[in-house]
């Protein structure tokens, strides 16, 4: 492999902990991150059946505050932030005027006029520059890149609440899905959010960077009885794919619109003008020519990001994500296909390194946890 000289990789506050624990580290979005601890399949299964602990401190945090903060967020975020109560979060898109994805994000309403946007690690400078510029017309609102002020841990899986509860005075049972609360975790000031990127119940915990290691160790210790294990980005990717969650840079980017990505539910159709609104309304009215689908491979082989999709002999689309799911034990993925081939049950071929391999459109998510 060739060594390419690049800017030094950034490190999360838990970097030394990952290295000391023998995690396999890889560069990801400019960060030196653990891709695997005990093994992708083992970690994946732990999250589905017990619990796994993730360091996602590489994620970016951008705060928007000021009298007109709501108007500012409404302008740059596709979803309708006016529906958020204080203490509530929503999934959304940061869109171009063409309705395509600069990034996807979570919008947290910290106070009536104070929002926290959690964005993807590799996009932080781009997102921040865009947001700072775009909110200017909104009036009295300022955006701050607060990424260095937060470490972010995710405890995910059916045992997540049982593991976290002994460490905090916050009554976790009262936090509903996509709500959050402030409190302490292991005597560290924290914001506890019932969110995640795995398709399981779980929490994402914002803590000051200097206390991240303490909280990490406390969670591992508290989860010892149920065999919680640290997990890397590899399992995070297979988990989110099973759950049908889009990955920016793979499934959504500046070439794909929210309508094409089948994310109409994160577009505030009824709210006032926002960046991308006109393009999306037009596309929704006239009908998108292509759409993202979930698929299963009918023959052995894994369709991966960038592989071509064929209908008959015609190159018709492209695979955006694909893996062999460790839990469902089948090869699944997402692809963009012409709208007439997107119905569940439609079959198409994927060019797997020169071999045409049959696939079938199936509804997403691939995996849904039992309630």
């Amino acid at each position, binding site marked *: 492999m060739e060594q390419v000289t690049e800017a030094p990789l950034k490190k999360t506050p838990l970097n030394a902990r990952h290295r000391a624990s023998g995690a396999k580290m890889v560069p990801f979005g400019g960060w030196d991150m653990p891709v695997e601890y005990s093994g*992708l*399949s083992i970690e994946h299964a732990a999250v589905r059946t017990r619990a796994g602990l993730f360091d996602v401190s590489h994620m970016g945090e951008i705060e928007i505050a000021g009298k007109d903060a709501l108007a500012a967020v409404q302008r740059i975020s596709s979803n309708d932030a006016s529906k958020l109560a204080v203490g509530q979060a929503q999934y959304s898109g940061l869109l171009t005027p063409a309705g395509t994805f600069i990034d996807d994000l979570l919008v947290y309403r910290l106070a009536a006029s104070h929002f926290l946007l959690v964005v993807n690690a590799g996009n932080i400078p781009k997102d921040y520059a865009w947001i700072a510029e775009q909110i200017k017309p909104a009036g009295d609102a300022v955006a701050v890149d607060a990424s260095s002020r937060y470490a972010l841990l995710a405890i995910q899986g059916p045992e997540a609440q049982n593991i976290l509860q002994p460490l905090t005075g916050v009554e976790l049972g009262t936090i509903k899905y996509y709500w959050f609360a402030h409190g302490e975790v292991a005597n560290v000031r924290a914001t506890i959010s019932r969110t995640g990127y795995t398709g399981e119940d779980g929490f994402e915990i914002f803590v000051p960077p200097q206390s991240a290691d303490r909280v990490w160790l406390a969670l591992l210790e508290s989860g010892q009885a149920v065999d919680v294990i640290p997990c890397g980005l590899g399992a995070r990717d*297979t988990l989110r794919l099973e759950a049908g969650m889009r990955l920016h840079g793979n499934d959504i980017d500046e070439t794909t619109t929210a309508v094409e990505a089948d994310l109409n539910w994160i577009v505030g159709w009824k709210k006032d003008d926002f960046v991308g609104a006109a393009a999306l309304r037009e596309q929704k009215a006239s009908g998108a020519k292509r759409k993202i689908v979930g698929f299963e491979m009918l023959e*052995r*082989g*894994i369709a991966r990001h960038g592989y071509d999709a064929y209908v008959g002999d015609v190159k018709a689309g492209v695979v955006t994500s694909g893996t*062999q799911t*460790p839990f469902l034990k089948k090869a699944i993925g997402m692809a963009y296909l012409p709208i007439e081939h997107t119905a569940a049950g439609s079959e198409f071929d994927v060019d797997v*390194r020169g071999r045409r391999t049959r696939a079938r459109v199936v509804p997403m998510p691939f995996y849904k946890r039992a309630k």
Partner: protein
Amino acid sequence: MAYPGSFKYTKDHEWIDLDGDGGRVGITDYAQQQLGDVVYVDLPEVGAKLKQGQSFGTIESVKAVSELYSPVSGEVAEVNTALKDKPETINKEPHATWMVVLKLTNPGEVDALLDATQYQALIK
């Protein structure tokens, strides 16, 4: 897992178990650990002629697709077709799971391969 002293190894993590002018080829325990769960192996046809270091197929795990490189020059005499349906045996028994049998066309190449001690030093 032990690295058989009777095998020869490559820097690309293949092994060859020589027997006369032929040899069985597989990948090492270290390689399967790095790959993780193997889900697909694409192997050549019997009769394919390979040069030393040439790709003779691909191996796909949950994580990635990797090339398989021929340890020596030779002609493919046998292919382990059972791997098509049971690729996971590579994870379970890497040193007992051969992929192809090669009939060597330049046996002198063997001398440049690593022995078990050298290979284990490489992966340390």
